């Protein structure tokens, strides 16, 4: 049996020195890509993710358009160099599933009825992955949708919680995800207080599940403050075209 890495030390600190309820450093920029109708870039720990939105645009294939609303499309994709072992660039089953859940996580925030017969395309490109890429991608994609000027009810913000060494902790990184005993990606709309994404694997007692759900909301609210600040800087203090950087101060 391999020696298991200790994920929490005697001082209660995690491998990267974080406390149980601490997020990794986060950097968010809005309006990063010139051609896209909306775009954002996020660094979430070692995750580096670019998100872009094109649309509302003409729907192809035509027969799949919806007469009363826009069709939302989403592609989550990982670069071949984003992980330890080179990843085949063709979309994997995992990426197809994640594309679906990201789309379904963002769709409730959008007023698609304002754009009948059109398509809105979201791209989430993971340039480097470090655990929690889908939820960081959602945070960035929601900013890209806002940057594209798509009418929306609320922002969507993502954050994962997990279980390591029998303890519920916020925001697992790659090492914790691999060695830990549970992971729960989560996204919600903070002002409407509605959950838009929830996945879970591992083993959670009913009580741990309740704690995890509570901690995920707290974490997501903190990411939301940074998401909101990035948008405010881009549109109200920086001026159009300039990118802004927001970092979490500890």
């Amino acid at each position: 049996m391999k020696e298991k890495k200790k994920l929490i030390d005697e001082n209660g600190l995690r491998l990267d020195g974080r406390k149980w309820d601490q997020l990794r450093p986060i950097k968010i920029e809005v309006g990063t890509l010139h051609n896209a109708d909306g775009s954002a870039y996020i660094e979430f720990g070692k995750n580096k993710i670019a998100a872009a939105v094109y649309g509302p645009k003409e729907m192809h294939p035509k027969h799949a358009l919806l007469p009363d609303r826009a069709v939302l499309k989403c592609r989550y994709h990982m670069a071949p160099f984003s992980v330890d072992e080179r990843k085949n660039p063709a979309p994997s089953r995992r990426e197809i599933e994640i594309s679906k859940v990201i789309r379904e996580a963002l769709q409730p925030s959008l007023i698609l009825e304002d754009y009948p017969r059109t398509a809105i395309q979201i791209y989430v490109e993971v340039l480097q992955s470090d655990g929690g890429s889908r939820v960081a991608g959602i945070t960035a994609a929601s900013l890209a949708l806002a940057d594209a000027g798509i009418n929306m009810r609320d922002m969507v913000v993502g954050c994962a919680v997990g279980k390591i060494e029998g303890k519920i902790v916020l925001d697992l990184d790659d090492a914790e995800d691999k060695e830990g005993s549970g992971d729960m990606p989560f996204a919600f709309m903070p002002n409407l207080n509605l959950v838009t994404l929830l996945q879970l694997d591992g083993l959670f007692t009913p009580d741990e599940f309740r704690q995890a759900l509570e901690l995920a909301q707290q974490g997501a609210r903190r990411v939301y403050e940074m998401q909101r600040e990035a948008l405010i800087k881009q549109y109200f203090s920086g001026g159009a075209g300039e990118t802004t950087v927001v970092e979490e101060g500890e």
Partner: protein
Amino acid sequence: MSASKKSYVVETLRKAQMIELLSKGKRIDGRQLDETRKLDVRTGVIEKANGSAIVTLGNTQVIAGVKVQPGTPFPDTPDKGVLMVGAEVLPLAAAYVEAGPPDEGAIELARVVDRGVRESEMIDLASLCIKEGKHVYAVFVDVNVLNVDGNLFDATSYAVVSALLTAKMPKYVLEGDAVKNSGEVLPVPVAKIPVSVTIARVGNTLIADPTSEEEAVMDSRITLTTDDESNICAGQKGEPGTFPPEQILQAAEVAIRRGKEIRQAIKAATGHG
């Protein structure tokens, strides 16, 4: 499996009617809100498979088959057997289904069921190693959906679990550097029985085990898989709707409570206790 198969006019009218009914705590087929449909499990239906089961949940019907073969382990788990769950919605299962490679709905279905079996540690993968890094048992469970009437997640989950519970595999032994069939037959090593329960949100009401008709008007669904000790071992929210956090906890309560009953039914049908 999305809502795109129905006319929007019919869907909207139907939804209004169903929400009115649900607000009185009633369902269109007369069930309680948290009541699941009649479950029938028949195992050992395919002689050429190592294990098999036909599960009928209301009018939803799926068949699962297990094939166990010698295989090579994944590089990151050299000392563990391989488990793979696949699912396909056959074109004969509903008018809207078209032949072709699995779409995102079928991929999600297979992956959520796989997660429940894997994370509950139903199969002792460590005991399926023949020679570390070289030879392991590969357990393939494939599900074909025969008739669609909603809640494919749970029907598929019950079929996979029932097929595994009754599966027998040949014992492979090392002969030099190769493996060969020893002629002996072993049961597939199962430790736990994961049971998924899917709950749909229609309007502001939660209903368990939705039919196709209910799925056509649902806003969102959540599938929660529990093990024998009521731990939650897999979860998936789906569809472009939302859940208030407190309804997720309600759903977990229903998944644990109904999960226990269904586990008993599966145990009885597969001769496990």
